[in-house]
Protein backbone atom coordinates (compact mmCIF):
# COMPACT_ATOMS: atom_id res chain seq x y z
CA UNK A 1 0.00 0.00 0.00
CA UNK A 2 3.06 2.26 -0.28
CA UNK A 3 2.09 5.40 -2.20
CA UNK A 4 4.78 6.43 -4.71
CA UNK A 5 5.58 10.04 -5.57
CA UNK A 6 3.06 11.47 -7.99
CA UNK A 7 -0.23 9.74 -7.12
CA UNK A 8 -1.23 12.58 -4.78
CA UNK A 9 -0.53 16.26 -5.46
CA UNK A 10 1.97 18.35 -3.52
CA UNK A 11 -0.43 20.38 -1.29
CA UNK A 12 -2.23 17.22 -0.11
CA UNK A 13 1.07 15.43 0.44
CA UNK A 14 2.36 18.41 2.40
CA UNK A 15 -0.76 18.51 4.57
CA UNK A 16 -0.44 14.79 5.23
CA UNK A 17 3.20 15.38 6.10
CA UNK A 18 2.13 17.88 8.76
CA UNK A 19 -0.46 15.45 10.15
CA UNK A 20 2.14 12.66 10.18
CA UNK A 21 4.70 14.85 11.96
CA UNK A 22 2.10 15.80 14.57
CA UNK A 23 1.06 12.18 15.00
CA UNK A 24 4.64 10.99 15.40
CA UNK A 25 5.24 13.80 17.93
CA UNK A 26 2.20 12.78 19.98
CA UNK A 27 3.30 9.13 19.76
CA UNK A 28 6.79 9.99 21.02
CA UNK A 29 5.39 11.85 24.04
CA UNK A 30 2.77 9.25 24.89
CA UNK A 31 5.15 6.32 24.33
CA UNK A 32 7.58 7.93 26.74
CA UNK A 33 4.85 7.77 29.39
CA UNK A 34 3.54 4.28 28.68
CA UNK A 35 6.44 2.18 27.38
CA UNK A 36 7.82 -0.15 30.05
CA UNK A 37 11.54 -0.72 30.27
CA UNK A 38 11.33 -4.34 29.15
CA UNK A 39 9.13 -3.31 26.21
CA UNK A 40 11.66 -0.89 24.71
CA UNK A 41 13.83 -3.59 23.09
CA UNK A 42 10.67 -5.50 22.18
CA UNK A 43 9.47 -2.44 20.25
CA UNK A 44 12.75 -2.49 18.27
CA UNK A 45 12.15 -6.16 17.50
CA UNK A 46 8.54 -5.47 16.46
CA UNK A 47 9.79 -2.89 13.94
CA UNK A 48 12.32 -5.37 12.51
CA UNK A 49 9.68 -8.12 12.37
CA UNK A 50 7.23 -5.86 10.53
CA UNK A 51 9.93 -4.93 8.03
CA UNK A 52 10.57 -8.64 7.38
CA UNK A 53 6.91 -9.62 7.07
CA UNK A 54 6.15 -6.64 4.81
CA UNK A 55 8.51 -8.27 2.28
CA UNK A 56 6.25 -11.32 2.14
CA UNK A 57 3.61 -10.37 -0.41
CA UNK A 58 0.87 -12.99 -0.52
CA UNK A 59 -1.48 -13.44 -3.50
CA UNK A 60 -5.05 -12.28 -2.86
CA UNK A 61 -6.72 -12.32 -6.28
CA UNK A 62 -5.79 -12.71 -9.94
CA UNK A 63 -2.60 -10.72 -10.45
CA UNK A 64 -2.84 -8.92 -7.10
CA UNK A 65 -0.88 -9.30 -3.90
CA UNK A 66 -0.92 -7.81 -0.44
CA UNK A 67 1.37 -7.65 2.53
CA UNK A 68 1.12 -7.04 6.25
CA UNK A 69 0.82 -3.40 7.32
CA UNK A 70 1.50 -4.30 10.94
CA UNK A 71 0.26 -1.23 12.81
CA UNK A 72 -2.44 -3.07 14.72
CA UNK A 73 -0.05 -5.94 15.50
CA UNK A 74 2.52 -3.48 16.84
CA UNK A 75 -0.14 -1.64 18.88
CA UNK A 76 -1.34 -4.86 20.55
CA UNK A 77 2.25 -5.88 21.38
CA UNK A 78 3.75 -2.56 22.54
CA UNK A 79 0.83 -0.11 22.69
CA UNK A 80 -0.67 2.23 20.09
CA UNK A 81 1.91 5.00 20.62
CA UNK A 82 5.07 2.89 20.36
CA UNK A 83 3.27 0.81 17.73
CA UNK A 84 2.77 3.81 15.45
CA UNK A 85 6.47 4.61 15.87
CA UNK A 86 7.47 1.04 14.94
CA UNK A 87 5.70 1.25 11.58
CA UNK A 88 6.99 4.80 10.99
CA UNK A 89 10.56 3.52 11.39
CA UNK A 90 9.84 0.74 8.89
CA UNK A 91 8.40 3.24 6.38
CA UNK A 92 11.39 5.53 6.81
CA UNK A 93 13.87 2.71 6.19
CA UNK A 94 11.86 1.47 3.18
CA UNK A 95 11.61 4.96 1.67
CA UNK A 96 15.26 5.89 2.17
CA UNK A 97 17.06 2.59 1.52
CA UNK A 98 14.73 0.48 -0.60
CA UNK A 99 13.03 3.14 -2.78
CA UNK A 100 9.68 1.76 -1.57
CA UNK A 101 7.16 4.52 -0.94
CA UNK A 102 7.78 7.98 -2.35
CA UNK A 103 9.74 10.51 -0.29
CA UNK A 104 7.12 13.21 -0.91
CA UNK A 105 4.49 10.60 0.02
CA UNK A 106 6.17 9.63 3.31
CA UNK A 107 3.64 11.66 5.29
CA UNK A 108 0.72 10.07 3.44
CA UNK A 109 2.17 6.61 4.04
CA UNK A 110 2.79 7.27 7.74
CA UNK A 111 -0.80 8.51 8.16
CA UNK A 112 -2.30 5.50 6.36
CA UNK A 113 -0.04 2.64 7.40
CA UNK A 114 1.28 3.73 10.81
CA UNK A 115 -1.16 6.12 12.52
CA UNK A 116 -4.48 4.77 11.23
CA UNK A 117 -3.60 1.10 11.58
CA UNK A 118 -2.00 1.48 15.02
CA UNK A 119 -4.50 3.91 16.57
CA UNK A 120 -7.62 2.85 14.68
CA UNK A 121 -6.70 -0.81 14.91
CA UNK A 122 -6.07 -0.56 18.65
CA UNK A 123 -9.39 1.23 19.24
CA UNK A 124 -11.21 -1.60 17.45
CA UNK A 125 -9.13 -4.12 19.40
CA UNK A 126 -10.29 -2.57 22.69
CA UNK A 127 -13.94 -2.66 21.59
CA UNK A 128 -13.65 -6.32 20.60
CA UNK A 129 -11.93 -7.18 23.87
CA UNK A 130 -14.95 -5.84 25.76
CA UNK A 131 -17.22 -8.13 23.78
CA UNK A 132 -15.03 -11.24 24.04
CA UNK A 133 -13.90 -13.17 27.12
CA UNK A 134 -10.79 -11.91 28.91
CA UNK A 135 -8.63 -14.85 27.85
CA UNK A 136 -5.61 -15.31 25.60
CA UNK A 137 -7.93 -16.61 22.92
CA UNK A 138 -10.08 -13.50 23.28
CA UNK A 139 -7.01 -11.27 22.90
CA UNK A 140 -5.76 -13.22 19.89
CA UNK A 141 -9.10 -13.09 18.07
CA UNK A 142 -9.58 -9.40 18.89
CA UNK A 143 -6.11 -8.61 17.54
CA UNK A 144 -6.68 -10.53 14.32
CA UNK A 145 -10.10 -9.07 13.55
CA UNK A 146 -9.04 -5.53 14.47
CA UNK A 147 -5.95 -5.86 12.26
CA UNK A 148 -8.07 -6.97 9.32
CA UNK A 149 -10.43 -4.01 9.72
CA UNK A 150 -7.47 -1.63 10.11
CA UNK A 151 -6.32 -2.48 6.58
CA UNK A 152 -9.71 -1.43 5.19
CA UNK A 153 -9.49 1.80 7.24
CA UNK A 154 -6.06 2.47 5.73
CA UNK A 155 -7.44 1.91 2.22
CA UNK A 156 -10.27 4.36 2.98
CA UNK A 157 -7.69 6.91 4.13
CA UNK A 158 -6.02 6.59 0.74
CA UNK A 159 -9.38 7.20 -0.94
CA UNK A 160 -9.84 10.40 1.10
CA UNK A 161 -6.37 11.54 0.04
CA UNK A 162 -7.06 10.62 -3.58
CA UNK A 163 -10.37 12.48 -3.50
CA UNK A 164 -8.58 15.52 -2.05
CA UNK A 165 -5.61 15.70 -4.36
CA UNK A 166 -5.28 12.63 -6.56
CA UNK A 167 -3.70 12.78 -10.00
CA UNK A 168 -4.87 10.83 -13.03
CA UNK A 169 -8.55 11.70 -12.79
CA UNK A 170 -9.95 8.32 -11.73
CA UNK A 171 -13.56 8.66 -10.44
CA UNK A 172 -13.55 8.50 -6.65
CA UNK A 173 -16.53 6.14 -6.57
CA UNK A 174 -14.74 3.44 -8.54
CA UNK A 175 -11.54 3.95 -6.55
CA UNK A 176 -13.47 3.45 -3.28
CA UNK A 177 -15.06 0.23 -4.48
CA UNK A 178 -11.80 -1.16 -5.86
CA UNK A 179 -9.68 -0.19 -2.85
CA UNK A 180 -12.13 -1.52 -0.24
CA UNK A 181 -12.72 -4.70 -2.23
CA UNK A 182 -9.08 -5.71 -2.60
CA UNK A 183 -8.10 -4.53 0.89
CA UNK A 184 -10.85 -6.60 2.48
CA UNK A 185 -9.05 -9.62 1.03
CA UNK A 186 -5.63 -8.32 2.12
CA UNK A 187 -7.16 -7.66 5.56
CA UNK A 188 -7.91 -11.36 5.93
CA UNK A 189 -4.20 -12.09 5.48
CA UNK A 190 -3.32 -9.27 7.88
CA UNK A 191 -5.70 -10.73 10.45
CA UNK A 192 -4.25 -14.23 10.17
CA UNK A 193 -0.63 -13.06 10.45
CA UNK A 194 -1.50 -10.77 13.36
CA UNK A 195 -3.43 -13.45 15.26
CA UNK A 196 -0.65 -16.02 14.71
CA UNK A 197 2.04 -13.61 15.92
CA UNK A 198 0.09 -12.38 18.95
CA UNK A 199 -0.81 -15.98 19.79
CA UNK A 200 2.84 -17.06 19.74
CA UNK A 201 4.02 -14.12 21.89
CA UNK A 202 1.17 -14.74 24.35
CA UNK A 203 2.28 -18.36 24.54
CA UNK A 204 5.94 -17.54 25.16
CA UNK A 205 6.00 -14.24 27.05
CA UNK A 206 2.42 -13.09 27.84
CA UNK A 207 3.80 -10.44 30.22
CA UNK A 208 5.27 -8.55 27.25
CA UNK A 209 1.94 -8.07 25.45
CA UNK A 210 0.65 -4.54 26.11
CA UNK A 211 -2.90 -5.34 25.00
CA UNK A 212 -3.10 -8.33 27.37
CA UNK A 213 -1.71 -6.63 30.49
CA UNK A 214 -5.00 -7.19 32.31
CA UNK A 215 -4.69 -10.95 31.88
CA UNK A 216 -1.61 -11.15 34.08
CA UNK A 217 -2.21 -13.35 37.08
CA UNK A 218 -0.95 -11.61 40.21
CA UNK A 219 2.30 -12.82 41.73
CA UNK A 220 1.73 -15.70 44.11
CA UNK A 221 4.00 -16.28 47.08
CA UNK A 222 5.31 -19.79 47.40
CA UNK A 223 2.82 -21.38 49.78
CA UNK A 224 3.95 -22.61 53.17
CA UNK A 225 3.38 -26.32 53.53
CA UNK A 226 -0.26 -26.84 54.35
CA UNK A 227 -1.05 -23.17 53.79
CA UNK A 228 -3.12 -22.01 50.82
CA UNK A 229 -1.32 -19.67 48.42
CA UNK A 230 -1.90 -15.99 49.07
CA UNK A 231 -2.03 -13.37 46.39
CA UNK A 232 0.18 -10.31 46.62
CA UNK A 233 -1.58 -6.99 46.16
Amino acid sequence: MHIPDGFINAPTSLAAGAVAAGGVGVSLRRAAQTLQEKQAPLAGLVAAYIFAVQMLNFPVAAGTSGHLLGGCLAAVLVGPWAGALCVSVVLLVQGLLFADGGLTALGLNIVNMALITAWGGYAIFLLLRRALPATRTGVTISAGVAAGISVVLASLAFVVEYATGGNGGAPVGTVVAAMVGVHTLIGIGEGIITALTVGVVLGVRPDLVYGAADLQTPLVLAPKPGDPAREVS
Partner: protein
Amino acid sequence: MRSSNLRIFLLGGLLVAIGLAMLVSGFASSSPDGLNKVAEDHGFATTARQHLFENGPLAGYAVKGVGNDRLSTGISGLIGVLVTFGIGLALFAVVRALRSDRDGSEPTRAP
Protein backbone atom coordinates in the same frame (compact mmCIF):
# COMPACT_ATOMS: atom_id res chain seq x y z
CA MET B 1 16.72 -14.80 35.17
CA ARG B 2 13.93 -12.67 33.75
CA SER B 3 16.29 -10.38 31.80
CA SER B 4 18.17 -13.34 30.34
CA ASN B 5 14.81 -14.80 29.29
CA LEU B 6 14.04 -11.49 27.61
CA ARG B 7 17.37 -11.59 25.76
CA ILE B 8 16.65 -15.10 24.53
CA PHE B 9 13.18 -14.04 23.44
CA LEU B 10 14.57 -11.02 21.56
CA LEU B 11 17.30 -13.09 19.92
CA GLY B 12 14.77 -15.74 18.90
CA GLY B 13 12.43 -13.10 17.49
CA LEU B 14 15.26 -11.46 15.57
CA LEU B 15 16.27 -14.83 14.08
CA VAL B 16 12.66 -15.40 12.98
CA ALA B 17 12.60 -11.96 11.32
CA ILE B 18 15.94 -12.62 9.60
CA GLY B 19 14.74 -16.03 8.43
CA LEU B 20 11.56 -14.55 6.98
CA ALA B 21 13.39 -11.69 5.27
CA MET B 22 16.27 -13.82 3.94
CA LEU B 23 14.66 -17.13 3.05
CA VAL B 24 10.88 -16.78 2.80
CA SER B 25 11.03 -13.48 0.91
CA GLY B 26 12.15 -15.34 -2.20
CA PHE B 27 8.76 -17.03 -2.36
CA ALA B 28 6.77 -13.79 -2.04
CA SER B 29 4.25 -12.92 -4.75
CA SER B 30 5.65 -10.53 -7.34
CA SER B 31 2.19 -9.34 -8.43
CA PRO B 32 1.43 -5.65 -7.82
CA ASP B 33 -0.02 -4.95 -4.38
CA GLY B 34 -3.61 -3.84 -3.84
CA LEU B 35 -2.98 -0.12 -4.32
CA ASN B 36 -0.77 -0.55 -7.39
CA LYS B 37 -3.31 -2.90 -8.98
CA VAL B 38 -6.11 -0.40 -8.38
CA ALA B 39 -3.90 2.33 -9.85
CA GLU B 40 -3.24 0.20 -12.96
CA ASP B 41 -6.89 -0.75 -13.38
CA HIS B 42 -8.20 2.78 -12.93
CA GLY B 43 -5.65 4.66 -14.95
CA PHE B 44 -3.58 6.56 -12.43
CA ALA B 45 -0.56 4.24 -12.21
CA THR B 46 1.16 6.36 -14.85
CA THR B 47 1.13 9.38 -12.54
CA ALA B 48 3.82 7.70 -10.39
CA ARG B 49 7.17 9.45 -10.62
CA GLN B 50 10.50 7.73 -10.31
CA HIS B 51 11.77 7.43 -6.75
CA LEU B 52 14.63 9.77 -5.92
CA PHE B 53 16.70 6.79 -4.78
CA GLU B 54 15.57 4.49 -7.62
CA ASN B 55 19.23 3.70 -8.35
CA GLY B 56 20.28 3.27 -4.73
CA PRO B 57 22.31 0.20 -3.75
CA LEU B 58 19.26 -1.52 -2.19
CA ALA B 59 16.47 -0.05 -4.33
CA GLY B 60 13.59 -2.43 -4.94
CA TYR B 61 14.79 -4.92 -2.29
CA ALA B 62 17.72 -6.02 -4.42
CA VAL B 63 21.43 -5.61 -3.78
CA LYS B 64 23.15 -3.90 -6.66
CA GLY B 65 25.72 -6.18 -8.25
CA VAL B 66 24.26 -9.47 -6.97
CA GLY B 67 23.05 -11.41 -10.00
CA ASN B 68 21.06 -14.17 -8.30
CA ASP B 69 17.56 -12.76 -7.64
CA ARG B 70 16.78 -14.82 -4.56
CA LEU B 71 20.18 -14.13 -3.01
CA SER B 72 19.88 -10.43 -3.83
CA THR B 73 16.44 -10.18 -2.22
CA GLY B 74 17.58 -12.23 0.77
CA ILE B 75 20.65 -10.08 1.49
CA SER B 76 18.64 -6.88 1.10
CA GLY B 77 16.12 -8.32 3.56
CA LEU B 78 18.84 -9.16 6.07
CA ILE B 79 20.23 -5.63 5.82
CA GLY B 80 16.75 -4.14 6.17
CA VAL B 81 15.92 -6.19 9.26
CA LEU B 82 19.21 -5.30 10.97
CA VAL B 83 18.99 -1.59 10.09
CA THR B 84 15.35 -1.41 11.24
CA PHE B 85 16.19 -3.26 14.47
CA GLY B 86 19.12 -0.92 15.14
CA ILE B 87 17.12 2.24 14.51
CA GLY B 88 14.21 0.83 16.54
CA LEU B 89 16.43 -0.01 19.52
CA ALA B 90 18.01 3.44 19.43
CA LEU B 91 14.67 5.23 19.03
CA PHE B 92 12.97 3.40 21.88
CA ALA B 93 16.00 3.86 24.15
CA VAL B 94 15.59 7.61 23.50
CA VAL B 95 11.82 7.35 24.08
CA ARG B 96 12.49 5.73 27.46
CA ALA B 97 14.94 8.51 28.26
CA LEU B 98 12.22 11.09 27.50
CA ARG B 99 10.19 9.95 30.51
CA SER B 100 9.28 12.92 32.63
CA ASP B 101 9.03 10.94 35.86
CA ARG B 102 12.44 9.62 36.76
CA ASP B 103 11.38 7.74 39.88
CA GLY B 104 11.43 4.46 38.00
CA SER B 105 7.85 3.58 38.82
CA GLU B 106 5.98 1.91 36.02
CA PRO B 107 2.72 3.49 34.92
CA THR B 108 -0.41 1.41 34.95
CA ARG B 109 -1.10 -0.04 31.57
CA ALA B 110 -4.09 -0.21 29.31
CA PRO B 111 -6.50 -1.66 28.51
